């Protein structure tokens, strides 16, 4: 397995305010990482540090040369004033491989069409992104993320605004993408069951108690420790 990202003794936070420090993490290809933590625990800040969108306050973030990210942000972050079609949205995913002021080639457009088809949203191709349901938006964002043929897929609460059926469909699609393309996935979710079902590695993070733990699922998902972490009596069967 190829090492994609290594965080060495990293502190994460904003404006010199440390959320969590002493983070050590190594992400390799074909791994599925789930990130768990309460609201405001620093999950998204961790993702943004991994994505190099914000620099670590301390330590080193080593990223493999020319690593291509696929990113599925929370869908409500997009301003609905933009009449962007699903096709135009998915095209943007391909920009990771197209330089500024350059045009997309015929091959790029073929990859985009295939990504739309793969995500099962061909019927939504010409609809505006803003007019879609929560589940349709997530599928479109997944199509966008795979259009860039990424090495690492980063998902920020991809099932937050969908119902149970939609959640299942989206997670199956994510798992299919990961296993077929052998790429690494990091996914933030509030749903412990979702994380425990689909991921093989887990990160627990909590800003308030400066807590960070990462490792293989079986080692992390100790019911007692996890219960203490969330302050709940958990049943993860």
């Amino acid at each position, binding site marked *: 397995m190829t090492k994609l990202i290594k965080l060495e003794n990293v502190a994460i936070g904003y404006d010199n305010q440390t959320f969590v420090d002493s983070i050590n993490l190594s992400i390799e290809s074909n791994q599925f990482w789930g990130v768990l933590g309460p609201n405001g625990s620093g999950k998204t800040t961790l993702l943004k540090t991994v994505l190099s*969108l914000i620099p670590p306050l301390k330590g080193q973030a080593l990223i493999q040369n020319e690593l291509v990210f696929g990113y599925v942000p929370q869908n409500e972050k997009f*301003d609905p004033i933009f009449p962007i*079609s699903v096709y135009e949205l998915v095209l943007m995913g391909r920009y990771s491989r197209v330089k500024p002021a350059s045009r997309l080639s015929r091959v790029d457009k073929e990859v985009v069409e295939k990504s739309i088809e793969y995500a099962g949203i061909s019927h939504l191709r010409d609809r505006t992104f803003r*007019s879609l349901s929560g589940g349709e938006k997530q599928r479109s964002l997944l199509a966008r993320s795979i259009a860039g043929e990424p090495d690492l897929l980063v998902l920020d609460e991809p099932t937050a605004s969908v119902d149970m059926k939609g959640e299942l469909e989206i997670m199956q699609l994510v798992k299919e993408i990961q296993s077929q393309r052998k790429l690494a996935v990091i996914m933030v979710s509030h749903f412990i069951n979702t994380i425990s079902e689909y991921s093989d590695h887990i990160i627990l993070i909590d800003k308030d108690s400066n807590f960070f733990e990462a490792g293989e699922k079986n080692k992390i998902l100790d019911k007692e420790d996890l219960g203490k972490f969330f302050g709940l009596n958990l049943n993860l069967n």
Partner: protein
Amino acid sequence: MEILSEFINSYFLWRDPMIVAAFTGAICGFLGVYVVLRRIIFVSATLTQISSFGVALSFYLEGIGLAVFSSLIGPFALSLILTMIAAGFYALKRDFSRISREGVIAFGFLAASGGVIILGDRIASGVHDIATILFGSAVVVDPIDVYLIPGIAVLVFIIHLLFYKDFIFVSFDTESARLFKYPVRRLNTLLLITVALVVAVATRAMGALPVFALLALPPLASLYITENLKLVFLLSVIFGILSAVLGYFFSFVLSMPTGASIAVTASAFFIIALIWREIKQ
């Protein structure tokens, strides 16, 4: 009919201002789509006022005997420099601790508006000139504008054609653009500089009010009519041209202030689009 034939016979009077108005309408309509989508309508209003201030300041410097300075930095250059500085400031400085961005935009608008009126009171040719700067003139345009404005409009169109995908990308999803190593800050600055350039030349030629109206209203009308982004740009250019040309026409034949006439014509397109949308729904 009589009015129309009189208008046609006065061709030599309105030809140049009409060319300037049409190109201003087209390029403002186009850039206005970004202005509206990025929710910076009031940045564009502020830029038009700052541009007006630059023109007024140039007249003032000439009036107080600094003609040498004024000939080196004429109304266009001074207006352009101030508008560019303001555009650069608004593009690069996005976070203002404790106060909102709108507050700083309002500060720019109010300071420049007040400055224009104070300087207007002191420049030799007085109130009439300042009214022209703010609201536009129906009578004449500087002969150089007949070449300058179409030239700048074409240059800006070419820049936007080249960077279309990038400008849309950084406007819609800044975070992914950063992730894909796009030069977000430089693209945002270039985008706002093209707006500032057009605002500076167009405000000096036509006045602040019509330029602001042409930046805001044609794209708003287009966004009501279609959900296709490329069509929004096209319709906005068409509405911009029609608003400017028809506004000028009404101003000429009905002896109305030009800037106000263009603003009202652009508003009419907005109302028609609103009604269209309501009927369609």
